[in-house]
């Protein structure tokens, strides 16, 4: 059994034609593996999306059944916001003979109007009427504005032809 070299234990100094089993080093070159690992790391870091999109939860009222009685509100409490083309907001207070005014989505625009009206009108009800020319962004912005100014009562309602005429007549 002398031929079996035992792990290269210590037969180094023997001369005389004996084939010595080569002891390979236990250290292997890890460089390619590390390269690959870092390549993968870079790839995953760049492709991963950590920020999930935000979402805005809205709850629409149920469709009224024909037999349901719709609640009546005092017109003095109603403020109508019409979302027009090119990011304009037309708004008026009340229903009969309203005075249409124009504002925009800036902090000094609609937010101020909402604050002022809210202070003046107790139990204000907002009717948001996006016109056909308005964009989705306008709707999201106005709903967002409702959240910011902490409005309690508002509704998204379809625009009526009266509103369209009011906007046209106002020439704003």
């Amino acid at each position, binding site marked *: 059994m002398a031929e079996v070299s035992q792990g290269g234990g210590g037969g180094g100094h023997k001369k005389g034609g004996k084939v010595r089993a080569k002891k390979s080093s236990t250290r292997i070159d890890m460089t390619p593996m590390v390269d690959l690992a870092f390549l993968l790391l870079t790839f995953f*870091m760049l492709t991963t999306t950590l920020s999930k*999109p*935000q*979402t805005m939860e809205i709850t629409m009222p149920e469709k009224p059944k024909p037999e349901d009685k719709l609640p009546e509100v005092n017109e003095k409490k109603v403020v109508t916001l019409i979302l027009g083309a090119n990011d304009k907001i037309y708004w008026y207070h009340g229903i009969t003979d309203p005075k249409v005014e124009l504002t925009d989505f800036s902090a000094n625009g609609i937010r101020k109007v909402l604050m002022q009206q809210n202070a003046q009108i107790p139990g204000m009800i907002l009717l948001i009427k*996006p016109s056909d020319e308005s964009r*989705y962004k306008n709707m999201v912005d106005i709903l967002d504005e409702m959240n*910011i100014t902490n409005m309690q009562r508002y509704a998204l309602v379809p625009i009526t032809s009266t509103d369209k005429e009011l906007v046209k007549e106002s020439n704003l």
Partner: protein
Amino acid sequence: MGKVKVHRASPSLDMTPMVDLGFLLVTFFMLTATAAPEEPVSVDMPSSVSEIKIPETNVLLITISKEGKVFFSIDGKYNRQELLNKMGERYNIQFSEEDKSRFAVMSSFGLPIGNLKQYIDMPPDERKNVEQPGIPVDSLNNQLKDWIIFSRMTNPSLRIAIKGDSDSNYPVVEKVINTLIDNKVNRFNLITNMERTKPS
């Protein structure tokens, strides 16, 4: 003569901790990464101050593109197979098992149901070149309604999210919302981006 021997530092330093950390990070990113779903259209979402995150599962996503096309997507492989099965029965279109398994891994689509089979049968890289007309949402032919009804039948705990482009016109959005309300979906989510400037 006491010669001071300069101690030579070995040029090969021990990289083991770095490699350990590297692999730790690789593992972390591999496990957390979710491949971004391919979208047939790019959508530029409006921003809002809302800070609610969208849930990861059980989401039915309705995408509205700039041109007012409506796209539909739902998650869950088995739900999708089941859904296609039901839609096939409803519109009398025969979808094979292979169609179903291919549909299960598809991203969102915007096609009338009649063209869907042909679309499914295409190889994935050809699908990108298809000009998708959007799912019909007119009152005469409201296929979105059926997609929603059958999706909710398949998975009752679905949450419905609308991802609209800032510049899409309101009438299309209104149609989609009305479709939802008509089907007694009164609570839904609007996906938005984070507002860059905080309100004062």
